[in-house]
């Protein structure tokens, strides 16, 4: 096995330390102003990367974060692993029973808040591909499907935080928003996995039909038989393995095995990890402390590395296009708020409640950024569109809270 040289090892360790420290410091600073931690982590990457630090001290940037070599490769491997684990946590947080409990209201809100942005994103990209940076017209369908998916995704943790801050989490509106966001995530990642499958069709040894069939079969089997087996195995693991190490390593093993299997099938590994997370998290035998340890371990160590790495790869200044940012943000907001509003109205909620739900569902957060980066890596989108998606994700996450508050005040007044 080839290994890193002494200097490369130092560079890798140094870069990890700098990334974690800057992410935490900036994240905590923004947290004081009520801005999500993830925004601070992304900003840390932008500050450290070619957008700012690289402009001022290009040699220092090359020293800490070299653009090539063993350390860069290793760091890239770590961030790839981080995104897989992040999706495992996202799956862990998703509760299908909650969606079932909310029934029609969550179903309609979710479907409309997904279908309308998807349709608008798809047709916008299909008829104005050049504006959005379509490089290869052969990929028009994949590109359009991606933009549709990107506009339809919703960020569950951001929404949960907003609802909690507004003391709305236990209300009907809160539960509808949370369960609709969960359903959006599930369907969104399912579609995105198929989009990536479509993109890889030429390169993969598997046909698209095969990929679709396997994607659906994988999800169904994992969420039924897999969930049953995990449920039965957990008490045995808790009894016979050391705690909490046993659960942590078994959980992450399953996450990586699921990711490896889906990568082999031709779907991105993140989907495999996401579904394993759902099956694992739905077990009644998974103790709260165990869930907490897994989540804390991943979101406080690996998530910052991933989000900082985004800013290190891309120059946000040179790739910032005001027109693109404005159009992407406007399309994302109008379609999402409108779609969720329509779904909520159809399920019997009044105008103010529906508007509050619309703004709640509008927060995109980290999920949008992960989706965008995977598309960038797969060659579906270019740097400019990615930057526009990141800015849109940050803007929608920041304005959701205050806007929900406005409409919820109206709900209370009525």
């Amino acid at each position, binding site marked *: 096995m080839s290994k890193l040289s002494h200097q490369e090892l130092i560079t890798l360790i140094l870069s990890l330390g700098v990334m974690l420290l800057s992410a935490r410091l900036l994240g905590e600073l923004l947290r004081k102003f009520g801005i999500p931690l993830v925004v601070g982590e992304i900003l840390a990457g932008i500050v450290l990367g070619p957008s700012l630090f690289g402009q001022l001290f290009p040699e220092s940037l090359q020293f800490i974060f070299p653009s090539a070599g063993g350390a860069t490769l290793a760091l890239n491997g770590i961030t790839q692993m981080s995104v897989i684990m992040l999706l495992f946590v996202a799956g862990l947080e998703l509760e299908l029973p909650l969606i079932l409990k909310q029934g029609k209201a969550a179903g309609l809100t979710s479907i409309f808040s997904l279908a309308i942005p998807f349709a608008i994103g798809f047709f916008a990209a299909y008829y104005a591909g050049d504006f959005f940076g379509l490089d290869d017209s052969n990929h028009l369908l994949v590109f359009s499907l991606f933009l549709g998916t990107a506009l339809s995704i919703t960020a569950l943790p951001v929404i949960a*935080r907003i609802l909690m801050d507004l003391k709305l989490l236990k209300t009907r509106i809160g539960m509808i928003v949370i369960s609709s966001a969960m359903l959006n995530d599930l369907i969104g990642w399912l579609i995105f996995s198929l989009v990536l499958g479509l993109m890889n069709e030429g390169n993969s040894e598997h046909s698209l039909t095969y990929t679709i069939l396997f994607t659906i079969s994988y999800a169904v089997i994992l969420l039924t038989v897999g969930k049953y087996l995990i449920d039965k195995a957990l008490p045995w693991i808790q009894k016979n393995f050391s705690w909490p190490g046993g659960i942590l390593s078994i959980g992450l093993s399953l996450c990586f095995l699921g990711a490896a299997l889906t990568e082999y099938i031709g779907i991105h590994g993140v989907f495999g990890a996401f579904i394993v997370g759902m099956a694992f998290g739905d077990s009644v035998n998974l103790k709260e402390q165990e869930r907490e340890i897994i989540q804390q371990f991943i979101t406080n160590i690996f998530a910052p590395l991933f989000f900082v790495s985004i800013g290190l790869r891309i120059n946000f200044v040179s790739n910032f296009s005001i027109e693109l940012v404005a159009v992407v943000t406007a399309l994302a907001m109008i379609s999402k708020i409108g779609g969720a509003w329509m779904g909520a109205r159809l399920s019997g909620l009044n105008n103010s409640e529906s508007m509050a739900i619309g703004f709640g569902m509008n927060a995109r957060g980290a999920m949008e950024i992960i989706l965008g980066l995977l598309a960038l890596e797969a060659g579906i989108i270019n740097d400019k569109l990615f930057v526009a998606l990141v800015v849109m994700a940050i803007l929608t996450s920041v304005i959701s809270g205050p806007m929900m508050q406005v409409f919820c005040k109206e709900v209370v007044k009525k």
Partner: protein
Amino acid sequence: MQINRIALALAFSPRLEANLAEAARLNTLFQSHLYLIHVGDYTAGNEQELQQLLQRFNLTKQNCTVLWQEGETVDTILETCKEHHTDLLITGALEKEGLLQYYMGSIARQLSRKAQCSVLMLTEPSTEPHPFRNIVVSGGECSHTADTIALAMHLAKLEKANKVDIIQESEYHNIARLSSENKTADEVDQIKQEFISEDKEKLDEILSCTDCGSLKIERHHLEGKPGFAISNYAREHEADLLVLSSPDKKLNLLDRLFTHDIEHVLANLPCSVLIVHHENLN
């Protein structure tokens, strides 16, 4: 809160005598009228066996009606209950069923999911029935929690129960964890405590409007998956009756695949279970 009409889903099985004994006891307790519903072929042998049992349990034409029906078992029982405006349907039930049977739904489980009246599932019926002395009641958020608690208290008073445990379940740790990235541990804990206090206040309000007599009531808040946590509590505390609210929406196969709330209880009954339906309570 009164139970005026009780129905028993009757099957000529080894548990017939015990189920009938339990139904007769509750019929006397509530001073109600008992409908014995049998779906299947009428035979003179069955009739004779039944008459002997009716006599033994002092069930006469004044307090009991036997209904011989034909058709699909579950639908016919439910239709008959509806026709006779029964408040409570009693059925025998196994504590646990095979995986396939659970997903397909046994007769008892199907009745509990589809009934338009309250359902009592007896896991260990006895030919010499005992009162329910150790009762666990769900005080969880539901559109008719107050009805459920009221019926449970009414029954507990009639049974002279030793203790009634009212359980509130929540998954606030999940909710708090979801948004914990922007909060300190103390802030998250405070939010959880606020939620729990709100729940307690709601229960206080319900109990203040409920006649609990001199019953010994204990209130507990459990963190865990609703349905699963209360089921475990009832099993660990050797309760002989668990009282729950019927779900606000109809349950289907998906609810069994992604088990939640009452389905956790139905998957493995910890003791006899009373599911309170709100629509036709008096």
